């Protein structure tokens, strides 16, 4: 049995210290060790994007990263997005524009969109679609999701 590995991760601004098995995936660490089940698992080949979180501000697929690799990093999950109970602009956009149906892909969609808007504050519809290439949705047909990200971009621009 491999030696457990001690990690220190800042998750949604809270310090977390745990001994973990090397094989524990970051997504399972977040869900099962930290109890943050908003990050979902939809595939095992790094394609669906439901598990997307921000690691040191960058969108990554937490199913394709071992928890040990996040040692020393700062992770933001969907649960850490709202501040003081106030929805993030992207969350608000998804709500306003019916950007979700079953909601399963939604946390990953939102996290990818947050990172997308951080890189490009005023994306075109095509750029939004391209930016969401790594996130699959089977319910919405994406059109309302693109509306949602657009809505968020405009809301942020308005301040």
């Amino acid at each position, binding site marked *: 049995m491999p030696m457990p590995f001690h990690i220190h991760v800042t998750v949604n601004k809270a310090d977390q210290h745990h001994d973990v*098995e090397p*094989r*524990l995936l970051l997504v399972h660490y977040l*869900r099962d060790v930290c109890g*943050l*089940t*908003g*990050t*979902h*698992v*939809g*595939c*095992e*080949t790094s*394609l*669906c994007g*439901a598990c997307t979180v921000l690691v040191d501000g960058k969108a990554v697929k937490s199913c394709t990263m071992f928890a040990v690799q996040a040692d020393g990093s700062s992770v933001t*999950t*969907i*649960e850490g*997005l*709202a501040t003081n109970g106030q*929805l993030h602009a992207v*969350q608000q956009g*998804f*709500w*306003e*524009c*019916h950007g*979700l*149906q*079953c*909601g*399963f*892909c*939604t*946390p990953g969609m*939102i996290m990818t969109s947050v990172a997308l808007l951080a890189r490009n504050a005023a994306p075109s*519809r*095509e750029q*939004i*679609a*391209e930016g*969401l*290439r790594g*996130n*699959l*949705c*089977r*319910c*919405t*047909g*994406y*059109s*309302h*999701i*693109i*509306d949602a990200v657009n809505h968020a971009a405009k809301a942020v621009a308005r301040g």
Partner: protein
Amino acid sequence: MRRRRWPVADPNTTPYVGRAMKRIEDPRLIRGEGTYTDDLRLPGMVHAAILRSPHAHARIRKIDTTAAKAIPGVVAVLTGADVNASCGLVPCAAAIPDLKAPKHTVLAGDRVYFVGHAVAVAVASDPYIARDAIEAIDVDYDPLPVVTNAEDAVKIGSPLTHPDLGSNVAYTHNVSGGGNIDEAFRKADRIVKHRLYHQRLTPMPIEPRGVVASYHTGEGTLTLWTATQIPHLIRTLLPGMIGVPENKMRIVAPEVGGGFGAKLNVYPEEALIAHLAMRLHTPVKWIESRRDNAAATIHGRDQVGEYEVAVKNDGTILGLKSKTIADLGSYLQLLTPAVPTLTGLVLTGCYTIPAVKMEIVGVYTNKMATDAYRGAGRPEATYLIERLMDVVAQELKIDRLDLRLKHFPAPGDFPFPTSCGLVYDSGNYAAALTKAKQLANWDQLLKDRAAARAAGKLSGIGVSTYVEICAMGPSKAMPAGGWEWGCVRMEISAKVTVITGVSPHGQGQETTFAQIVADRVGVPIEDVVILHGDTSVAHYGRDTYGSRGTAVGGTAIVMCIDKMIAKAKTLAAHLFETTSDHVVFENGRFTSPGVTNRVITWPELAGEFYVAKNLPPGLEPGLEASSFFEPQNFTFPFGTHICAVDLDRDTGHVKITKYVAVDDCGPQINPLIVEGQVQGGIAHSIGQVLFEQTIYNEDGQLVTGEFMDYAIPRAHDIPDYILGSTVTPSPINPLGVKGVGEAGTIGATPAIANAVMDALEPLGITHMNLPMTPEKVWQAIKTKT
């Protein structure tokens, strides 16, 4: 240019119905606070992993679980020999005469019949160890001959999927209706023949299936959380499998991450995990991997057919004959054999076709079962009739819209009996077509195509005018009751609790039902809560499928409200010292003009009902009503979809340049949600027409077992939609609503396919199997140029 069609409504403005309101279910979901099956954590919970067959057909010589059991943390390793006697048979609810059905145990017995067939289960303290354990199980297989193609499977000498059944043919189902088909074909000037293929599809909800079971030994009660569309049907069927009585069984569908028919089933794992919880005296969780979802959750479509249309030279269609071979896979799941027969029900589409004859042959192959996938039968029928209309128009050189218009029943012809034996409730097909043409700027579209063709480009326009069957359905036409149940209770605080027997999983009925209830009861929408998906809360129900939620479930709630208001009026009359017929109820206020100036509001009345000190004789305390709604017919939404495409000659790539959909689902409770349903449905069709396909190789190996190899649409595959609607209420229910969950998928597949074929028509290409992949398009172009 695209614009938002539906400004989101101010939540404080009434009426709520008909307005684009933000969803009530969203705040928890966008915060990551929804509880899906995999999010459940119970004390002492252990984790199951299932070992699945790598063979499409094999005899199991021996299973050695010794090494797996020795792994620290492993709780149990069990095979079919250990569990099947306690788990009954996986049920099929479809009543098809002379159906040959194999015994479907939860784990394989001495044979496996498809890749992904469950062979053994390991239970461990964590899912990693459970995975270690199934890897350590040694199964000795003796491979047997495999059949993977349904057309081959009906040939003499084919390997048999189930040798004990003696044949691969599960059933032959004949539908004929209307006039004499032979006479129709005798009178025809021409017989137009066409062969059409509906490829196998994998539904791929983003949340795979999952089950958590907990058994209370002392009480003998079982609680089963499962990612399902049908908690109530499971509660009806699971008792017969595992022996826990229905009234000691609670089924919960927590948040469910998409269904599309894939979760409209009773699966082996539901019985197996329940049994393990009982056997091991501890809660057990099983979560499906994507690979297992692709291999062992139902597939859709997989039908191939030969079709013949009898026509006069002026385009008049006299009759339609079809022979369809439906690939059922190796086992019957809940509705497997019924789905192809649904195709037969709307074979004539939205046209007057005097005589029809259809033969459906359901065939076993060594593949996963097919079953209801979004649209279930209607996309198949719509694709074939709409392709045939184009083929007929092309052969007779008449305009394809004229051909369609010529065969539409007029608005005055409704209720319209069809040759397939249905009675369409209401419709105005020409109006939808006209509106779609307007939105598409039809004449300009034709000019653009002509210009593109003149410039040597391959440009096409496709049209589909469809009708579908929704609001399933009248119980006499359904396998296990098509009614719906609801309950509306006004609490003592005047908050309204609504319980529905439908089980939404993305369709937004927490919002649409709240809109209906708030308007009818006259309370603010935030005072309404919709409960669903838990059989201990919603005691009865027939769940969510077949675009039935609002039309059937919503109607049950309307009936409850009417009963509740009638009861409230009795008390109001008592308080007004008059009779009920002198009480007026409006906007949440009870008055009695001419009797008194007093106004009674819900809080006062609700208090009286529960304090119960001043009730008239014979009036029961409490303010609650429940109802079962039994629909007298299905509803028949319809519409017109128009699609324009450009083809890249060099790469075969199809680009959708315009997409217009006009759908008539009756009055829309929430246009934003309707729009979402239509857009989502069209996306499934884009996938089906252009790239999705489930592929088994000749050895029966599933080679599209992951998102790496099975493509579903992504954001950049989606065109800008132009959506519109017409409103033709249904007379079948008091809301007039028809249903819209599957419309997009039913209307869009033929529109897109017809567009691609239209683009290829100048080259003389008249046939292409779905999906119309770049390589197929390129090959077709290459052979003609």
